[in-house]
């Protein structure tokens, strides 16, 4: 995978995280970081390891790729893991709602 597409993955993931931060109902200061980092990692990881692994050995074609980045496994796994991380931390970063 080229460095250009890697930087693109990181930037797009952080932008997605910022969108979640702005549009999401939960207001915590770390949503963009949780979504951005986990999505970037998962997209890179899936694109690099799924093709050629024995686990997905029956899949012969992983679809289109850009500079070594397989779009379908990368985007799908990035979305899934970011969603899992966001959902899994819904209580962890909840704002303090205590009132006087």
């Amino acid at each position, binding site marked *: 995978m080229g460095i250009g597409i890697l930087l693109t993955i990181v930037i797009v993931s952080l932008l997605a995280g910022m969108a979640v931060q702005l549009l999401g109902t939960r207001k915590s200061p*770390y949503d963009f970081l*949780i979504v951005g*980092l*986990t999505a970037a*990692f*998962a997209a890179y*990881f899936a694109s690099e*390891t799924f093709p050629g*692994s*024995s*686990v997905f*050995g029956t899949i012969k074609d992983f679809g289109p790729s850009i500079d070594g980045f397989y779009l379908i496994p990368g985007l799908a796994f990035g979305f899934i*893991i970011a969603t*899992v*991380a966001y959902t*899994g*931390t819904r209580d*962890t*970063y909840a704002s303090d709602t205590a009132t006087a």
Partner: protein
Amino acid sequence: MKATIVRKDTVIADPPLARFLFSDTRMAPVWLMVRLFVGFSWLDAGWHKIIDTGAKTNYIIDGQGILAFWQRIVAIPAAPAKPVIGYDFYRSFIQFMIENHWEGFFGKLIAFGETAVGLGLIFGAFVGIAAVGGAFMNLNYMLAGTVSSNPVLLLLGFLLVLAWKTAGFIGFDRYLLPLLGTPWRGVELPSAKPTRQLVTPATL
């Protein structure tokens, strides 16, 4: 320098940094990424062994694959070449398993064990136990002379063991550990009747 007297029932608390890294659920997303990396490595390795049905390479039919590996690593080459295994006790152990035909059992154990460790780490089920199992296999592969990705996986496995309470928070451990009695949140000790305290000369 003041001497500190510590009672036998004293609990020594972790420093704040260690508490944040290994016991704080805010680190769960980081451990999720570590789990995925280590877990998929194990799942890939284990699944590869399960689906391999070659007469000389299989692990789960009659273990010829692991037997061939053992026979290769116990061989002692002519000097000045060095043997693959650096420790004599481990070479004797492998030789013992070859002579007693343990390849059938160990082939299945390794193939299904690696797969189970991978699934446990990926889904966050009993992460601490899975990480210990993975680290133990890494140790054995390195003792057998195989470096590959084992040092990295061993290091990450150690970190997952340290973070066993929170590494699976984004996963099944969030529900499994409380069922087994592990609290996710700290239990406050009653302040009126302290049962554990650090005793220093100032308090005597």
